[in-house]
């Protein structure tokens, strides 16, 4: 029985992990290129969730159609935030960029709060379910899984096969060297930041396809913290490292929950969170290049 539950939870964990992966790729891309930790990461995910909700609830447009819309919204936000604020903070001490991105997150939360309210919302998009040997999976989750993998592959191809992607990779390695070789570093910064934010907002769509309830202005905070753990697991600078780390994180989170639920007198949900932060610290201390990173 327990194995059945575990297998079911792990399947959901794998699917959620893919979504987590996409939700973290933006954070890693931005850190890799600009060396800036986006502490306001979660609120951008929240924006994506609200884009989905608004399109579906107000106009009846199915969630998958919100994916390109969220990407566009996110990239617009990313470019705007970069050119107004971040451009001036790249060479500043960490304190400045950390506080600025956090303030940006608060600003987003507050704007959404004052325009759309603070109540928890959700939507129902029923497109059937499939029955697997160990669990029943709604089709929306399957679509979120497939969509996440497509996005991850697309980013991989852009990063590794295109001219612009190569330029960005050289900036990750050594921004001064890239500049000397004629790479337009400023544009690489702007584009990476915009793509990073775009991916993050877009992941909000996948997330609501996985969990279509609990959408509210402050939903992002928990995802910021999860994204930190995942990004560190993936080596912080590598977007597709983050994707695989997301898969691992989803499995660990859902798997450990099954075991903690067996221990009497504890709160399994909180302990699961504790384990993830313990992993974060251990990885940072033992192997700061990430599980999949080079030594």
């Amino acid at each position, binding site marked *: 029985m327990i194995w059945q539950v575990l297998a079911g939870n792990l399947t959901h964990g794998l699917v959620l992990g893919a979504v987590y992966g996409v939700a973290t790729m933006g954070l890693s891309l931005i*850190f890799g290129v600009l*060396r*800036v*930790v986006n*502490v306001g990461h979660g609120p951008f995910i929240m924006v994506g969730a609200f884009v989905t909700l608004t399109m579906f609830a107000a106009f009846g447009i199915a969630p998958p159609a919100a994916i390109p819309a969220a990407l566009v919204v996110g990239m617009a936000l990313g470019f705007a935030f970069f050119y107004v*604020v971040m451009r*001036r*903070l790249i060479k*500043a*001490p*960490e*304190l*400045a960029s*950390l*506080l*600025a991105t*956090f*303030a*940006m997150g*608060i*600003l987003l*939360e*507050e*704007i959404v709060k*004052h325009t759309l309210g603070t109540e928890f919302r959700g939507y129902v998009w029923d497109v059937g379910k499939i029955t697997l040997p160990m669990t029943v999976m709604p089709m929306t989750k399957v679509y979120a899984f497939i969509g996440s993998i497509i996005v991850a592959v697309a980013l991989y191809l852009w990063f590794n096969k295109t001219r612009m992607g190569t330029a960005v990779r050289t900036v990750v390695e050594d921004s001064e060297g890239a500049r000397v070789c004629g790479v337009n570093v400023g544009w690489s910064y702007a584009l990476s930041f915009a793509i990073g934010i775009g991916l993050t907002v877009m992941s909000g769509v996948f997330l609501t396809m996985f969990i279509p309830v609990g959408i509210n202005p402050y939903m992002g*905070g928990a995802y910021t*913290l999860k994204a*930190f*753990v995942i990004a*560190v697991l993936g080596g*912080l600078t590598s977007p597709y490292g983050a994707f695989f780390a997301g898969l691992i994180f989803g499995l660990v989170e859902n798997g450990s929950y099954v075991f*903690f639920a067996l221990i009497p*007198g*504890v*709160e*399994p*949900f*909180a*302990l*699961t*969170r*504790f384990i993830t*932060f*313990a992993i*974060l*610290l251990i990885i*940072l*201390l033992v192997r*700061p290049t990430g599980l999949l990173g080079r030594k």
Partner: protein
Amino acid sequence: MKLKIVKYYPLIPVYAAYLILFLIGCTMPGMWQMVALLAFYCAIGQAFNIFLGMTGYVDFGYVAFMALGTYGMALGITAFYQSGLGIGIIFIGLLLGVVMAALLSLAVGAVALRLRGAYFAIATIGVNEGFRYLIEGAKIWGGSEGMIFSGELKEAFGVEMASRLSTLWADVAVFIIAAVAAFVTIHYMRGKIGYALTALREDEDAAKVMGINVTRYKIIAFITSASFAGLIGAMAWALKLTYVFPPDVFEIHYTIECIIVVLLGGAGTLLGPVVGGLIYALSKYWLAVVAPGFQLLIFAPIIIAIIVAFPEGIMGLVKRRAKGTGWERYII
């Protein structure tokens, strides 16, 4: 001998500010709550500045030390309220709070201070959140329900004294803590520790090569700063509110507020946290009155603008203007 006193001159404006604040609170009816709020922000700014301002390391989980101070006081009161020790119970609580905060900072410092920049910031967030979920998950110290000890406090001191402790003496203690923190700040700044920390803030590798034991000084600053945070948590949160609730005391927004206070006033200056704390708390208080619910919406863009426009903070600017004038020795 004269030289020794001169180095403490910058304390004069700080103490003058605290004295004026204290007198306003004592003499003007109805002002004490606001004065207490101002003192609280000045105190946490001053405490955080000892680490953030002097080393340049960003501890994003700073509120964890305040949380442990709060728990220390809560544990002290709930364990000893029937012991008949009188006011000694409060001192036991304070001691527990400081020791717990200091021990955590020692543990975190010993391992996480090897990390730099963004990695350190993320690690400290991890410590803060990890600790919170450990308490909630393993049901330590009341788990996610927290601890409520107003009953114990009343039983130990009587209803009237308990209420005076919460509404008056806890705030007075915050003033004293702020004053002591200012003294320690200047003592560090004008001593060997301050010079070592300045060197490491500017260039850690160079400082190391010059033979400075950077790890030692970083940990000294970290533990000092965390201990003050523990004291403030014990007084301004535990004794004043008479409860501890994990989601409140580990709330990351308090860390952000500390950072804002320090940055606004000027990181690494003595007067900065006082100026920053006063401005931040006053504007927060004022906005809560004139635009309730809109404080954060107004604050967020202002913070971004301040970071971009003048990252040195107010005292950073004032310090530059004061250079070469007679005011120089009073401002740091």
